[in-house]
């Protein structure tokens, strides 16, 4: 092998504290090094050209660049050597900037360390092999999991781009949390007026195949070639026949079912259509409360249904689809606020959540837009809003800010004044977090124009006194205890990862944080990608966010999916594991630990061997560390390469 070594000055960034000429001179003596030089800026155009020329002039077969972190410029130099006619994987980098010149000023020690790092890179490069990416055909179809506003946006954008879309939503209707809101900040425009048309677009778009009341059962395959099994839960109604006329819901004798759409602020019938604008507008039977399904007595809906759609015998159905990319847009749920026993832990009827309050405000809600408190239906006058219930609270393991509560609380204070002009709102807050276009103005308006009284402090207890609730808290600005006799208390409950999110993440083989939010590829630079190729994120499933941000991320995820599937084939990263069939004994330890299911058992003339599915392998090397014979090796991170690096360090 003929290796060329390029030691970058990076201006004075490296040369200032490393004797780069000395490092180059040392490198010249290293095995297989045919050429070594120091260069001002290796990544600059002349720097890259110099590398290309050196490759040709010195007939180099591999290159070591000692400069900044490979996380920064490895792709740059790979392209450079490729232009010079080498395989793009015949390059190694020594990180002598972030790991050497920037963290210490002792030039002698730095020069020694830089030499060591170059030596390690040379020894590793000597064992590099030419790698050729494989071309994989793709299925040009996108799965969108979750039909909230982020998922809707992603689906519509994909469809707009000509892509086929499969949307899966676990509730009977799409719309998500946004469909439950009355108005939205900071413009106080009607939520359903904004969202409704988009929902209708989804229903009417020929490119979108909608599965509601359905969940992803399993997913196999890999980027470009996923196979998804969808469980269509049985609504006990043949949706092909159901016209959404609603007669069944009028006649159903059981009117005490929990009303999910209204967050329990009212009851509904066992067979119901969640809300008038539901998409699809189809009836679903709640099997837990339906008298026919529970004890076989009733059957009224079947009698009244004009289209004969009711089917008590219906069973779940599994459907399989092939897609090339997945957008996860599963949103969020609210945390269980009853852990706050000082707020009554659910014992007080007039302590409600903000989303329940939203339903009281909504004209399509159980009170038709009149604020009536749950205990006695009276109109409340003194309303206390408590923020950060389940946000920024380390004591219950939720140190994060939910992000949207400050804004919706301000909105609810404004709407309260609109609904009940002689009411007084009190808002207990920790900090007002309103960065965003027209947001801070909005929270000020709640205080200044709508007279909401903002108290900076936490509430320590809520005590029922007669038909009032005594809210005791601290006003930390005034430095005193405050007590407010409230008619209604609204808790701004923090969000958490959607229930079942970790389980979905396991199916998608993406990672999630300790709260269950899905992990993006890079916090700043890959906000909608995940570490599993072909799976993208949109909306609050990645982290809590408000409607504009969710919509923006929906579009971003769609753009990524469209970009990925714009070609007929995909190139796989060839830095994958491979099996030396002569050494493999088929013990199965590798396929048992592979996080991606990328290794499978195969039969080679009667002997069991392991086989790597290159397109699925993500190159983590866990199998390599597990295989006792070392029969499975991760290209460019082989045992021998790591050992060569260790030897270079320890034995010279």
């Amino acid at each position, binding site marked *: 092998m003929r290796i060329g070594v390029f030691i970058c000055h990076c201006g004075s960034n490296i040369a200032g504290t490393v004797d780069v000429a000395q490092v180059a001179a040392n490198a010249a003596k290293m095995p297989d090094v045919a050429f070594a030089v120091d260069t001002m800026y290796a990544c600059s155009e002349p720097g890259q050209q110099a590398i290309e020329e050196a490759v040709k002039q010195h007939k180099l077969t591999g290159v070591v660049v000692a400069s900044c972190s490979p996380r920064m410029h490895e792709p740059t130099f790979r392209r450079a050597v490729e232009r010079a006619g080498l395989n793009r994987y015949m390059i190694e980098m020594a990180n002598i900037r972030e790991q050497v010149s920037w963290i210490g000023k002792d030039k002698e020690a730095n020069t020694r360390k830089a030499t060591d790092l170059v030596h390690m890179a040379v020894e590793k490069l000597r064992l590099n092999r030419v790698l050729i990416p494989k071309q994989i055909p793709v299925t040009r179809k996108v799965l969108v999991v979750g039909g909230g506003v982020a998922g809707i946006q992603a689906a519509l954008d994909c469809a707009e781009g000509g892509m086929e879309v499969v949307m899966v939503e676990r509730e009977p209707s799409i719309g998500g949390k946004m469909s439950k809101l009355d108005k939205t900040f900071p413009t106080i425009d009607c939520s359903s007026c904004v969202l409704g048309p988009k929902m209708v677009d989804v229903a009417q778009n020929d490119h979108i195949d909608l599965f509601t009341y359905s969940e992803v059962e399993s997913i196999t395959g890999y980027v470009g070639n996923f196979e998804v099994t969808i469980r269509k839960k049985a609504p006990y109604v043949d949706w092909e026949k159901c016209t959404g006329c609603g007669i069944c819901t009028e006649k159903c004798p059981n009117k005490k079912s929990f009303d999910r759409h209204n967050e329990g602020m009212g009851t509904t019938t066992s067979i119901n259509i969640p809300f008038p604008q539901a998409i699809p507008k189809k009836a679903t039977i709640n099997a837990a409360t339906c008298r026919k399904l529970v004890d076989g007595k009733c059957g009224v809906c079947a009698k009244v249904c004009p289209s004969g759609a009711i089917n008590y015998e219906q069973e779940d159905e599994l459907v399989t689809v092939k897609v090339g990319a997945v957008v996860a847009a599963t949103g969020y749920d609210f945390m269980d606020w009853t852990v706050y*026993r000082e707020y009554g*832990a659910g*014992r007080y009827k007039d302590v409600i959540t903000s989303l329940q309050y939203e339903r009281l405000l909504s004209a399509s809600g159980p009170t038709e837009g009149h604020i009536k408190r749950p205990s006695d239906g009276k109109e409340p006058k003194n309303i206390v809003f408590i923020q950060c219930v389940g946000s920024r609270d380390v004591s219950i393991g939720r140190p994060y800010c939910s992000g949207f509560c400050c804004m919706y609380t301000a909105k609810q204070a404004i709407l309260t004044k609109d609904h009940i002009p002689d009411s007084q709102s009190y808002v207990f807050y920790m900090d007002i977090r309103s960065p965003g276009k027209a947001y801070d103005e909005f929270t000020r308006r709640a205080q200044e124009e709508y007279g909401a009284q903002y108290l900076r402090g936490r509430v320590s*207890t809520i*005590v*029922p*006194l*007669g038909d009032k609730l*005594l809210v005791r808290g601290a006003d930390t600005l005034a430095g005193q205890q405050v007590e407010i006799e409230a008619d209604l208390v609204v808790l701004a409950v923090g969000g958490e990862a959607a229930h079942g999110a970790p389980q979905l993440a396991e199916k998608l083989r993406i990672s999630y944080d300790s709260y269950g939010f899905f992990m993006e590829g890079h916090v700043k630079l890959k906000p909608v990608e995940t570490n599993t190729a072909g799976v993208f994120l949109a909306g609050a499933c990645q982290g809590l966010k408000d409607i504009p941000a969710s919509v923006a991320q929906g579009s971003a995820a769609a753009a990524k999916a469209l970009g990925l599937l714009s070609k007929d084939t995909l190139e796989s990263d060839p830095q994958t594991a491979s099996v030396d069939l002569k050494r493999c004994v088929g013990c199965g330890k590798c396929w048992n630990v592979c996080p991606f299911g990328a290794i499978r058992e195969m039969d080679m003339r009667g002997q069991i061997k392991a086989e790597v599915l290159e397109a699925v392998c993500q190159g983590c090397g866990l199998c390599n560390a597990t295989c006792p014979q070392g029969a499975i090796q991760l290209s460019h991170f082989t045992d021998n390469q790591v050992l060569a690096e260790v030897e270079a360090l320890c034995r010279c």
Partner: protein
Amino acid sequence: MAEKTFAYYPGCSGAGTSIEYDKSNRAVCEELGIKLVDIPDWNCCGSTPAHQVDHVLSAALGARNFAQAEQLGLDTIITPCPACLKNQHNALEHMEEPGFAERVNELTRRPLTRKHSIKSVLQVILEDITPEEVAKHVKTPLSGIKIVPYYGCLMNRPGKSMKFDDDENPMALDRLMAAIGCEVLDFPLKQDCCGGAAGVADNKVTSRLSGRHLQVANHLGADAMVVACPLCQMNMDMRQAQANAYYGTSIKLPVFYYTQLMGLAFGIDKSRLALNKLIVDPAPVLAKIGKSAEEAQA
């Protein structure tokens, strides 16, 4: 039922202002088969001042009591007083911290050789005896009287360290009083501060705070208040007149220790319950016992 034996720490009030608590406690425990062995030569738990001055010293006071109990071969101390409970509970907790026990041992020169714990008598009755078992001992159900249970602030807080009952909505007294036949009212202020020791320095504070409890109890129609803390009892009972004066009310609400009522229900001789030590006369309330039931029958 097997006898349960504990080292008993009566606390300073038990020997003085709350002697009726101590007496009724011993009587009730005897009835329930809880054997109390007095810790020989026990010392003050440190009360409020000690830990405000020096945590090590404060813990050393508690540690000495545990060392005394160790002599008896008993590792669990029980005490009726929530303040004594809290202080000595804290002592044990602090001594788990690295280096802390060594500093305490320097003072006591009597390192603890075993693992110790401290509980309230209330906790033992609730958890080890259970309300169901208590009900079996009842000879005279206290039907006909409505009570509000008042726990005070220390009995089960902070929840993380006390690990007893629900720290925001305790039910121990509610359940025990129901077991002996009382009608228990839901008392929203069951844990709100009575003013504590502030009564000594400025009785307006205690009057303001405890006065509200009394008014709410009165408003709810309570015949009596039931407490488990000597200080609460003092503020509610002895200082009831002060609170009435502060608010211009004229409430006469007897304030019982829960053990006194249990003793009554168990048919224990009244002299052993020291009912005569109460300031607000309990006689009118005691007269109601059993009445409403009889009236209903008639």
